């Protein structure tokens, strides 16, 4: 498939790589260039005596280069993709040389191995589970007492609590092997108690904590999906092996967009997908430590013929990619016809949900309207959702729609839409 330069540059791990990659997109630097439907390769003269061999797997996007760069993809891979987009005619070779064919074969074998993981020792696993459950039980009892103290004293006392108050409780939850509960406590401590509306945030977090602890205590009476949600909220990691043992959901997955968050230690990327046939939404998270290569197999505004394995939940959303077969150009995503339809489905999700505050959504036919310095998306019945977006994104939505109904994909949080992309003029436009 043909990638746009914008999409290619999205793959670069940082701004410096974008710049360096652009420099490599110069025909005079490449000694040979070749391409098949599923792969690209080239030899580029670097600072060493022998040229670097760069190869790209286009089916399930992957790169390899003999250059010593620790960045991934390296500037040569970005340059090669840019060259393909700019000067496809220059890729004159059509038969992959051995160093490309071997690598492609290895990748295929690895994918097969991933699809058939080793069996686990079930007895040992159950023993570990029982031991952990016991520890968590202690933590849950302790946290409920702590919550009751807070409720008795009143939330008005929270702004006066010092750092140690939150840290000590969070540490005890970590000791109880319930890091999810520790996160709840930390979040309470991190609330801005000077900002308007902190009372609701504090009450909501406290109530969610209570729901999780109570859910754990009434474990046996819960549905399997809700049990998993409680486990997730407790911070019980779900083994990736178990995910891979699932049959998974095979579909054409439309990659609606991505969001990237960075803190001092970690970059978190959230990809939002929607299945064309299953009509399911999926959230794929990537956590990248400094210096760690990015997995760039998910390209926003494309669609993947792939199998996803979902973390079990009452509302399964988070998933991992089990297998990718092919990448295709994006087609029009289908979505809710009205906001009322979304409300109904949202109500169903949150009525059992413990902590989901953000939901992916495709709004099938909404009209952007610029009213009172606010961008609203209104449906045919007049219901409106406020859009939270950059100035550039706002004008792009308006320009693409011209005040006519369009399809918008994004994330809804607190009745606000954070748009990720718009379908207009037979094309998916990322925002």
């Amino acid at each position, binding site marked *: 498939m043909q990638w*746009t*330069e*914008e999409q290619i*540059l999205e793959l670069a791990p940082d701004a410096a790589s974008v710049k360096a990659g*652009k*420099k490599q997109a*110069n025909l*005079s630097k490449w000694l040979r260039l070749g391409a098949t439907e599923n792969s690209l390769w080239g030899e580029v003269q670097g600072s060493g005596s022998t040229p670097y061999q760069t190869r790209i797997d286009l089916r399930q996007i992957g790169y390899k280069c003999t250059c010593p760069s620790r960045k991934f993809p390296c500037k040569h891979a970005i340059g090669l993709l840019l060259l393909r987009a700019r000067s496809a005619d220059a890729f004159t070779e059509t038969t992959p040389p051995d160093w490309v064919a071997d690598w492609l074969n290895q990748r295929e074998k690895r994918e097969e191995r991933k699809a058939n993981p080793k069996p686990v020792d079930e007895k040992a696993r159950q023993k570990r589970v029982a031991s952990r459950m016991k520890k968590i039980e202690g933590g849950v009892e302790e946290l409920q007492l702590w*919550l*009751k*103290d807070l*409720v*008795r*004293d*009143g*939330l*008005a*006392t929270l702004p006066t609590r010092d750092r140690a108050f939150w840290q000590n409780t969070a540490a005890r939850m970590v000791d109880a092997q319930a890091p999810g509960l520790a996160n709840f406590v930390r979040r309470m401590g991190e609330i801005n108690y000077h900002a308007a509306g902190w*009372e*609701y945030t504090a*009450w*909501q977090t*406290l*109530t*969610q904590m*209570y*729901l999780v602890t*109570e859910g754990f205590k009434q474990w046996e009476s819960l549905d399997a999906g809700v049990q998993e949600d409680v486990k997730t909220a407790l911070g019980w990691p779900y083994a990736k092996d178990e995910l891979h043992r699932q049959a998974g959901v095979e579909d054409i997955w439309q990659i609606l967009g991505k969001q990237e968050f960075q803190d001092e230690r970690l970059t978190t990327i959230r990809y939002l997908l929607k299945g064309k046939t299953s009509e399911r939404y999926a959230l794929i998270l990537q956590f990248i430590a400094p210096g760690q290569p990015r997995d760039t197999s998910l390209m926003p505004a494309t669609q993947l013929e792939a199998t996803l394995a979902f973390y079990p939940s009452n509302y399964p959303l988070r998933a991992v990619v089990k297998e990718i077969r092919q990448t295709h150009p994006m087609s029009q995503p289908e979505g809710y016809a009205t*906001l009322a339809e979304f*409300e109904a489905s*949202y*109500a*169903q999700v*949150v*009525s*059992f949900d413990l902590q989901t505050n953000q939901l992916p959504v495709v709004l099938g036919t909404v*009209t952007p*309207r*610029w*009213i009172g310095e606010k961008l*609203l998306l*209104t449906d045919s*019945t*007049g*219901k*409106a*959702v406020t859009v939270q977006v950059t100035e*550039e994104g706002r*004008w*792009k939505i*308006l*320009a*693409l729609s*011209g*005040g*006519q109904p369009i399809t918008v994909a994004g994330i809804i949080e607190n*009745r606000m839409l954070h748009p990720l992309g718009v379908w*207009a*003029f037979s094309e998916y*436009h990322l925002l």
Partner: protein
Amino acid sequence: MNSIDEILKAALLGTDKTPPQSVIASLPQAVQQELSQLPSEDNETNFLQLSAFMLSYYRAGQEFPVVDIDTANQNNSSEIEGEKYASTAANRLLRALISENRHSLLTIWLTHCAEKSYKIAPQYLPQLLKLGEEDVALQRQLAEVMGERGHWLTNLNDDWQVLRQSTQEIWETGTSRQRKQLLRHLLDHDRAQATELMQSTWKEENATDRFDFLSVWSNPQSAEELTFLETLLQDKSKKVAALAQQLLLRQSESKLAQQFHQQCHQLLTLKKGSMLGIGSAKIEINADVNLTTWIKELGLEPESLDKAFTDQEYQAFQILSLIQPKVWEEQLDISPEKILTPFITDKSLQKYLPAWAATVAFHRNSNWANAWLDFVLASSATKVLLNNTSSLLPAASPEVLVCLFSDKQAEAILSTNNSIQLLEELRFPWSLEFSKAALHLLYRNFADRGVYHYETEAFMRLAERMHIKILAHQEEFLPPQNEKRDTWRTMLRDLFRTIELKTKIPTSFDE
């Protein structure tokens, strides 16, 4: 107050002060019934149970607000039926120009778009309109190709309203900066309209604007324009009148220039050789000619500011800087080379050489500029000659400049600091030969030192001038493999990328 507010109030005070029963009493009947089924425990547990129930109840029941569609429709919508957008290739190119900040090429892209009667695809409109906010010329171009969708969009953003205004409206209501830009744009595209607009409001303009507009408008190109310029000699502002004088002196047909040249031609005389043919013709400056009237009239300095000149010599020097070179050719009936020679070789005349450089630059006289450069290119170039050369280069012909750029003297004339600026001033169409010479000049000046950040924009603008066949010669300007010179390599590649994109623009519309 809604139920959640009641709960929050109770939560803030704590169950010691507000028992949950008092909150439950304020909740809807249906909720109270549900809550009554929960096991009753201590106050704290009851409150937490109540909260858990109400959190889900509240979240699941949230609805989006309804807006009055009739009011919301006040902006209407934009019909674009029948609008023809540029080809995918042209749009891809436009995206590259925007994302790679190659804004200097946007004008070319938009010109082709207008010529083909295409409209800008909506997704690119916001970025282009944003870029046009401070650039009236770009706005005028955008207004032509933004289509219905663009018109609709500009209505929603105050900063883009200017695109909906007619030329007349911008001229009447725009800021000084916008009006100056508009005048410059119109002078390139519709000089008659530019002149008409400027004259229509001339009497109402303040002195600063009159001066700025006249500076932009500069050289009259018809008898009517000349007459208008002559009226400005009586302008209330001394600055405007002085500028009008300067401009009129450049026009040989103007009355001012004719009177000036008539009275000042005695400044220079040619003394023929002796009867026997011994000795050659000699040019003399008659510094004792009375120039007081013109010195006063033109606001020049009556007293010398340079100890090398007497007051009279200094007056002669200033007048010499303004007289059209071709007047001397007619007056003395000899070629520019023969007039210049004594000023280069005769020590007593050398101090007047800068005046010649000034007059050649002032009148943009190509013959004299070429004659001057011939001396420079000959090994006899003196320091005074070299020091005064750069100002007259924009008047020289491309062929002579090509020779100069490849000459060793170029280093003394075209420093790193002024070479980009000079090349930008060379407005004639650049041939391949000239483009190569210009790039060789830049290579010599920048390959070692690199192009500084503040120079890059101007450096990239040179891509607009370069001949497209230069693309085949990139290697000639790359440093040898063993020499790093990374900044130069980067800039050169970037320059060639810009040229490459420029060459693709015309064909991309047909792909």
